[in-house]
């Protein structure tokens, strides 16, 4: 019997819908899960993905990818490649493993929600592939991280991080629960495949892969490149969904896209920014974080907005200004509060590294150099104790990251300014104006409490540094510390130092 031609069967397998006769459509696709909103139910019939795939094709391709990536892993396991990696680069991978492994699993839940509650047969079909992709990503990331535990116990946080109350984990759970767990299918399609996957994962999985290869970490580059090949397929759920939503409810489309972009930008500034501009050894850096953002994120995002008739987000100027500050402040915060993280952050502010930073970010010395100089002088004065925290940084109510974004006044002064809101009998603080605006518009949502909120509510006992570390699940064997103080302080040894901690104490 001759096989049917593709065009004769494809419609049946990729876009089968149901005509419900025993129950109402609303019972099968309830608003709170499906989220059609102002879009007429029948409008979703036009949903069509541009790149089509059948299940046998999918399985065959995925099998090849899995075989290839695990073959490389098996081969490298027998080599000593890992031992020659720099501590800085290892930290970049620890951030990734802990920050990503279980987000991928959250992605499974989001794809499953679209596979069940998506409003067109073709969409649900595509989401089935999407959840299989995310399951593979969760598995592969956990497996690769697990492999390294024997060499370094911090890799245990690949699987552990998301199950703890570490402040970084809380921040990520807060972002991704809003984006994936608690959203309806329509909003998920805009936030996850469209904004996060077509936008931001390029940065983490393509740009960071380049840094990985340059740093000699073939295994990591191989892993994240393999993951990225899946994104191109399932991320196309965003386009058709946005196209239909924009036609019927452009205000909602703009808001959901804007919010997801902002949340993603904050998280990447915290995790990818320091990895690119500080942890990756200077000689292996391909571009600065800002350059990567401009090339890989901003151009593409703006093109996407234009393509669908949306405007640039209201916060665009604040976002662009933040490219010069956010991740530098967050890097300093992660370094100063290093006992609270599961990797070893390199300060990476030797003379050569600072020259590079000042070249890429002309205001870097003015805004951050003076603080690093004090830290350097304390280290060179054998006073590392003065570089360790005794209180908490204030965490933004919306993104849960430290309120550490300096802005410049008209007079030229750089300061971290208070962005506050009095609402419902209490005072909230935010890292940026956009985080405040997002909180205000979403204020009816149930939000995670920040670590500062929990501390002040007495949930963390005893109320001291030891109690905080214990609450976050950190034990001495995995607590972060700088792997090589001398590497970035020796250039300044012997210089006169006034106004450092020892002088204040005396």
């Amino acid at each position, binding site marked *: 019997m001759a096989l049917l031609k593709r065009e004769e069967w494809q419609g049946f397998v990729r876009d089968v819908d149901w005509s419900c006769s025993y129950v109402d459509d609303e019972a099968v696709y309830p608003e709170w899960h499906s989220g059609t909103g102002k879009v007429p139910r029948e409008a979703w019939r036009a949903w069509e993905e541009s790149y089509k795939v059948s299940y046998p094709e999918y399985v065959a391709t995925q099998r090849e990818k899995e075989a290839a990536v695990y073959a490389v892993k098996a081969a490298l396991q027998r080599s000593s490649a890992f031992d020659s990696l720099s501590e800085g680069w290892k930290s970049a991978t620890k951030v990734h493993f802990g920050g990503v492994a279980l987000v991928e699993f959250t992605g499974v839940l989001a794809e499953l929600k679209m596979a069940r509650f998506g409003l067109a047969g073709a969409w649900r079909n595509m989401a089935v592939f999407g959840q299989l992709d995310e399951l593979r990503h969760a598995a592969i990331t956990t497996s690769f991280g697990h492999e390294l535990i024997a060499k370094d116990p911090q890799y245990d946080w690949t699987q552990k991080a998301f199950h703890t109350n570490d402040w970084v984990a809380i921040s990520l759970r807060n972002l991704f629960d809003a984006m994936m767990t608690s959203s309806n299918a329509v909003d998920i399609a805009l936030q996850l495949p469209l904004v996060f996957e077509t936008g931001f994962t390029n940065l983490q999985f393509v740009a960071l892969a380049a840094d990985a290869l340059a740093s000699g970490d073939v295994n990591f580059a191989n892993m994240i490149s393999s993951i990225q090949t899946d994104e191109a397929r399932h991320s196309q759920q965003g386009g058709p969904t946005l196209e239909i939503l924009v036609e019927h409810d452009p205000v909602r489309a703009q808001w959901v896209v804007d919010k997801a972009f902002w949340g993603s930008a904050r998280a990447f500034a915290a995790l990818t920014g320091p990895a690119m501009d500080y942890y990756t050894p200077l000689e292996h850096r391909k571009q600065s974080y800002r350059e990567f953002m401009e090339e890989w994120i901003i151009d593409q995002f703006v093109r996407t907005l234009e393509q669908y008739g949306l405007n640039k987000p209201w916060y665009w100027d604040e976002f662009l200004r933040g490219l010069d500050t956010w991740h530098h402040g967050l890097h300093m915060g992660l370094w100063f509060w290093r006992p609270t993280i599961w990797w070893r952050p390199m300060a990476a502010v030797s003379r050569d590294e600072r020259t590079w930073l000042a070249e890429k970010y002309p205001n870097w010395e003015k805004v951050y150099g003076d*603080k690093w100089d004090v830290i350097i002088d304390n280290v060179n004065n054998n006073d590392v104790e*003065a570089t360790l925290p005794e209180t908490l940084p204030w965490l933004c109510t919306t993104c849960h990251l430290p309120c550490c974004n300096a802005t410049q006044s008209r007079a030229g002064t750089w300061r971290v300014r208070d962005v506050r809101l009095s609402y419902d009998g209490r005072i909230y603080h935010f890292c940026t104006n956009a985080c405040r605006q997002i909180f205000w518009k979403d204020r009816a949502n149930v939000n995670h409490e920040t670590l500062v909120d929990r501390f002040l509510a007495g949930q963390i006992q005893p109320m001291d540094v030891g109690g905080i570390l214990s609450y976050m699940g950190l034990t001495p064997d995995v607590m972060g510390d700088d792997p090589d103080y001398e590497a970035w302080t020796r250039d300044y040894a012997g210089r006169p130092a006034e106004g450092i901690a020892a002088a204040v104490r005396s």
Partner: protein
Amino acid sequence: MTAGPEPEDRAPELVPLNAIFATDFTQILVPVTTANTMAEVAAAVAYHVEGKRVRALPYAKVVIYHGERLPADMTVAAAGIEPLDHIAVEYDIPEQS
């Protein structure tokens, strides 16, 4: 119903603050009490930052609350500073003549 004692006459109560010290890079959590003076509040904030991230300068420190410089002997209660309020601490650098 009788009015309670004036704020400055009550037993000291804990007042957790969102604070920034001069040019520091981040806001921090600093607990003070209603009985603390502004000089003590400035010192409590400076403890975490001065000489550690911001180079110490030989000048007095001043608390700024809602854009106003508060006198060094004023208490938290008298200033009306509430839990979770924001304050900034700056060096009181004399203007160059």
